[in-house]
């Protein structure tokens, strides 16, 4: 009685077998396969024709588009506007540097065992915004000033999402701590703040920031439109951030708090040295997910008149020089967002899986 050399009877996996098992196992599965398959086949063909085979990629203006397929020419002609908005051409290198630094800071995060990738991430959260703060608006170190009204396109989308998430992080931490505080008044204030912002749509917050903020401020003091939008987004986002972080705080076992107390650490040392480092690590996937939502939600700023990437496309698809390029424009924007959001969500799923196993063993 030694190791058997027998093979399972239905060993060979022929395509026919596979199809029988995965597509036609029962009569309703067969029916579904036929119906869904028909829909897929009839839509994919024309779609490919439109997007690739009949599409126009080269040329100089609208007359080079045949109209039979997609006019990608429109995108390539207007790409500069979609990426930089009205940012002056000759100064766009400043934005390019920021794009490059962004990539340097975050691409390593996707590559496991990239040496020192943690430090790249820390740079992304600290050095990067500081450099951006000086480089993009200019007006110092001999850099020419570029008004924020000229910022737009993908660059503006990234700025909104990035600053929104970065600024809401510390506020969110404070709110989460406040909500778990033992002082009833602090707790009450935090709860009210969090729940009110979470209950209202972002668009009302943006309206409020653009209409009411000027009324709230003393006369003579005012912010630019971009700044007002950022304030609104940050307050709104920090409420969501607080809830994510609270989840992490709750996941830390009581023993950790008690051990810190037993070591004689005060409240802030206990939180800062023991609890928060663990809690924040736990909620990175949650933070990444709220970032994805925020990233998509930044498109709403076009309603209050800022030109984010969707705003720039929306304002050009109606350009009479080009005909019927709305779909091309939307597909382009959709693609930009999809790449970012899908990539980041994959990243957070991987992280979740890793944190998951890290906790069990």
């Amino acid at each position, binding site marked *: 009685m030694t190791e058997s050399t027998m093979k399972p009877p239905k060993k060979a996996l022929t395509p026919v077998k596979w199809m029988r098992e995965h597509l036609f196992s029962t009569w309703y599965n067969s029916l579904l396969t036929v119906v869904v398959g028909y829909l897929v086949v009839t839509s994919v063909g024309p779609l490919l024709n439109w997007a690739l085979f009949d599409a126009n990629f080269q040329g100089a203006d609208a007359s080079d588009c045949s109209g039979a397929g997609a006019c990608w020419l429109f995108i390539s002609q207007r790409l500069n506007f979609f990426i930089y908005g009205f940012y002056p051409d000759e100064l766009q290198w400043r934005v390019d540097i920021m794009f490059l630094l962004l990539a340097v800071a975050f691409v390593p995060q996707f590559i496991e065992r990239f040496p020192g990738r943690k430090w790249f991430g820390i740079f992304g959260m600290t050095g990067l915004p500081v450099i951006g703060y000086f480089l993009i608006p200019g007006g110092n170190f001999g850099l020419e000033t570029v008004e924020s009204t000229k910022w737009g396109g993908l660059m503006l989308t990234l700025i909104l999402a990035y600053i929104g998430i970065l600024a809401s992080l510390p506020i969110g931490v404070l709110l989460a701590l406040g909500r778990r505080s033992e002082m009833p008044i602090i707790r009450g204030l935090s709860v009210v703040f969090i729940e009110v912002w979470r209950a209202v*749509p972002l668009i009302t917050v943006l309206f409020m920031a653009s209409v009411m903020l000027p009324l709230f401020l003393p006369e003579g003091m005012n912010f630019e439109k971009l700044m007002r939008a950022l304030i609104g987004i940050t307050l709104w986002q920090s409420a969501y951030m607080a809830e994510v972080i609270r989840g992490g705080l709750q996941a830390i076992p009581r023993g950790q708090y008690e051990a810190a107390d037993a070591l004689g650490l005060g409240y802030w040392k206990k939180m800062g040295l023991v609890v928060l480092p663990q809690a924040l690590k736990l909620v990175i996937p949650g933070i990444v997910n709220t970032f994805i939502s925020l990233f998509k939600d930044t498109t709403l700023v076009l309603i209050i008149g800022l030109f984010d990437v969707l705003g720039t496309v929306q304002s050009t698809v109606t350009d009479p020089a080009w005909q019927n390029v709305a779909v091309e424009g939307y597909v382009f924007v959709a693609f930009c967002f999809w790449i970012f959001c899908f990539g980041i969500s994959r990243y957070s799923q991987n992280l979740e899986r890793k944190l998951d196993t890290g906790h069990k063993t």
Partner: protein
Amino acid sequence: MKKQTIDSKPAGPKPWYDPRVRSLFFQILAIAAVFWAGWTLVENTLSNMESRGISTGFGFLDETAGFGIIMSLVPYDSTMSYGRTFWVGLTNTLLVSAMGIIAATLLGFIIGVARLSSNWLVAKVSLFYIEVIRNIPLLLQIFFWYFAVLGALPSPRQSIEVGGTMFLNNRGLYVPEPLTQDGFGLVWGALLFAIAAVVGIRTWAKKRQLATGQIFPTFKVSVAILVVLPVLAYFIAGSPLEWDVPALKGFNFGGGITIIPELAALWLALSLYTASFIAEIVRSGILSVSKGQTEASKALGLPNGLTLRLVVIPQAMRVIIPPLTSQYLNLAKNSSLATAIGYPDLVAVFMGTTLNQTGQAVEVVAITMAVYLTISLSISLLMNIYNRAVAIKER
């Protein structure tokens, strides 16, 4: 007083080192800060409004609005008050939210289950749908449906016809409106009777099962009764229903029911977008029921259908319902994107036009936010009650 008592304790700490005193101090400080901030804001706002000549108070709600609204569920014309515009906006918001919730739930459950299908093609198509739709901003999807799809439809004269009764063009979808005639009461009566009969049958079937163990095909019989009785009554009464079919009058259609493109685009986008999130919730809800549960159920001899109905679904629903309600809330909040394409919802009408005309930002924003706050607080209240009711009892 407080200080005195603490000091009088022999071994008591210095007040600054007493955690209770500290906590009291911080809380008083927090309240003071909030009051100070509130006070400054109010003062600034009042002086700003005065210098801009904006009046205060809720008197504007009774003033004449003077603007038209393209769609309203409650009677409205431009001679009515700003207060009325609030109701128009609110009902429109509720309409599109309700329509969206129904469609998104149906679609989301179908896709979520399809995602787990043993059929490879069906599972992969659902995965594709979920991953594409939920990673694209909702506003972009609304624009796509409104400008690129519905906006590209032909003009009324070249409408797309369905059987000569339904018309689709760039002004909207026109469908016949049913007008009930005299004898229609009979049909309503039959329907009521059928509902009563179904309720009766259900109780009877349950009782019989308790007593004899026999299982009655309640569902099939109920459906049959609900369909057959009203249909019979309809024909007995002599088909007492007429259809007001839309017809081309001048440049546009008249008669029938119109679904304006703004509503259609918003509804489509909201439903499709939310469905992709609901599908994921449904999928993970079903997966959260462990394999041991289905195995135990099968080992007890329950066939697949009953295993699903009695063991898997009741447990999955507990996991599904809380995030599902938060998706409903999101949908209701997202319906405010209506503003971007001009569907007259609460934000577009009230926070948009009414605010612009009256300039009374503080009041209008406060009312609008109060509405959303009410909706979301009442739903989370219901949610808490539900959670407490179904919470699986653990030690």
